[in-house]
């Protein structure tokens, strides 16, 4: 009964992974048979300024998105995990943007962020605040994309809710009897016990955020203005499917994966383990 799953996974994930790995060292346009070229793809990528623009944009996007989303999900989970009347409705509302299809979500934000008639700038103007051109300006385009994506944090929110729920009630009662105040409880009980869950969420957000830039960037800015929102997934997509340079695209994919691996390694270092307090 496991066979269909294992077979499907082999054909759809493991074999493709192998193909990417080997194509990175070959020249292939989809017509002539692939030709082994060693590190040539990487060398030509490293003289292309677009590669560096995409790498630095992607890094910036990830560096802004991951902490903001995890922090927001944590604050919302801490606020909404208590049993209270109507809390289910609040939780559902927080989850709502997460289920909106990516294309519809991007189109909605395209309208919300419209510099002239978008509701955000109408509100800002009514409050007498500055109204930047958001997506049309290279300085604000990337932060605007980050902000738009911030609301789709439902999955991390639910994982953290489950984590908070797994903390035994007795701990809190014992702390209250010992006279701990809310901040002490948060620092010494809640956060340490939530650490493994937080780690899981950070790792997931890290992996997801690299590719989650694709749909919004393609639909909302097309990578512009002046490459200000050109991210690695879009560059891979264009290299492979517009220019048919499959070898270069595979090499770029490999670079993306290496960068992601580096990010996870740094995270592991920074956290000093995978989040379990008894791990050394």
């Amino acid at each position, binding site marked *: *009964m*496991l066979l*269909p*799953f294992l077979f*499907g*996974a082999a054909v*759809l*994930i493991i*074999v*493709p*992974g192998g*193909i*990417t790995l080997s194509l990175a060292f070959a020249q292939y346009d989809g017509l002539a048979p692939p030709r082994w070229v060693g590190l040539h793809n990487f060398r030509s990528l490293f003289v292309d300024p677009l590669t560096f623009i995409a790498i630095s944009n992607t890094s910036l996007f990830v560096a802004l998105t991951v902490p903001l989303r995890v922090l927001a999900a944590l604050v*919302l989970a801490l*606020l909404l995990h*208590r049993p*209270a009347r*109507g809390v*289910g409705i*609040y*939780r*559902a509302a*927080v*989850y*709502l*943007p997460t*289920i*909106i*299809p*990516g*294309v*519809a979500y991007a*189109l*909605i934000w395209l*309208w919300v962020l*419209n510099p*002239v*008639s978008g*509701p955000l700038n*109408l*509100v800002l103007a009514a409050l007498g605040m500055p109204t930047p051109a958001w997506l049309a300006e290279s300085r604000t385009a990337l932060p605007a994309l980050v902000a738009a994506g911030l*609301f789709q944090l439902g999955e991390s929110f*639910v994982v953290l*809710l*489950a984590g908070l*729920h797994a903390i035994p009630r007795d701990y809190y009662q014992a702390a209250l009897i010992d006279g701990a105040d809310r901040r002490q409880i948060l620092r010494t009980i809640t956060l340490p016990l939530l650490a493994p869950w937080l780690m899981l969420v950070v790792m997931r957000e890290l*992996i997801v955020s*690299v590719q989650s830039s*694709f*749909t919004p960037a393609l639909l909302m800015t097309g990578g512009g203005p002046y490459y200000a929102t050109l991210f690695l*997934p879009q560059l891979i*997509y264009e290299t*492979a*499917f517009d220019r048919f340079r*499959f070898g270069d*695209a*595979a090499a770029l*994919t490999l670079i993306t*994966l290496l960068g*992601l691996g580096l990010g996870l390694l740094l995270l592991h270092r920074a956290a000093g383990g995978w989040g379990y307090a008894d791990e050394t």
Partner: protein
Amino acid sequence: MPMKRSLLRAGGFHALAGAITLLFCVPFVWVLVVSLRQPGLAPPQQIEWLPNPAAWSNYPTIFAMLPLGNYLLNSLSVVLISVPLTRLVAAWAGYALARLPERAALILIALAVGLRMVPATSLWLPRFLLFSQASLIDTFGALIAPALMGTSPFYVLLFYWAFRRIPAEIFESGRLDGAGAFGGWARLGMPLVGPTAVTVAVLCFVHYWSDFINPLLYLKSDHNYTLAVGLRMLQQLDPTGWPLLMAAAVVMIMPVLALFVLVQKAFVGRI
């Protein structure tokens, strides 16, 4: 005195939570309002809370402007094939994992988690090459293919957790009564994991309904487009066409939203 304080605190909580709810939901209310605005009018100069008069005709208009009915049908076909297929494969795999000895199951679970971590970006290109070899490009086959592996290892794990909660004795007695592996799964296992089966079906529906990247990569001809890629065409409309664009977005969101409202307890209620 403490009574009053706790009341005050509860009030503060609801005010804060209400504000958050507003922040997360107001954009969708705006979208609904704009989708009913008269198209062709100059863009509004201030926030409008009610369209005046409501142009319900925007909805028929977009169906006439784009082959939206065709896109809808394509999306529905993809969903109708891939959701049951996913449920079958994922439930089988989850059931088998739950019946395996602990050690073997653990290794396979580690594998499933590892597979879940593979970034989708790295699969676009090789899958394209594989699908062209299998002449699946520009067919729904390319979109449905992931259902063959249960769409996501996560769904397999959901079923595994659900089947693990069922006492082994139930299946043992089933085996003595002459039920094979498949019989035990169908007659004893599945009826006991209803909520999980519903959750997986909903997640899977949302996944295929929203899928933008796969149709973008693997479909070529306009008549095969699903709603997600079809909607991209509307992006070129100028600001006076916003109401039509938002009406199309509403068409795409509504089925997902309706499902979510029906089963939201499965997501956030029971925790």
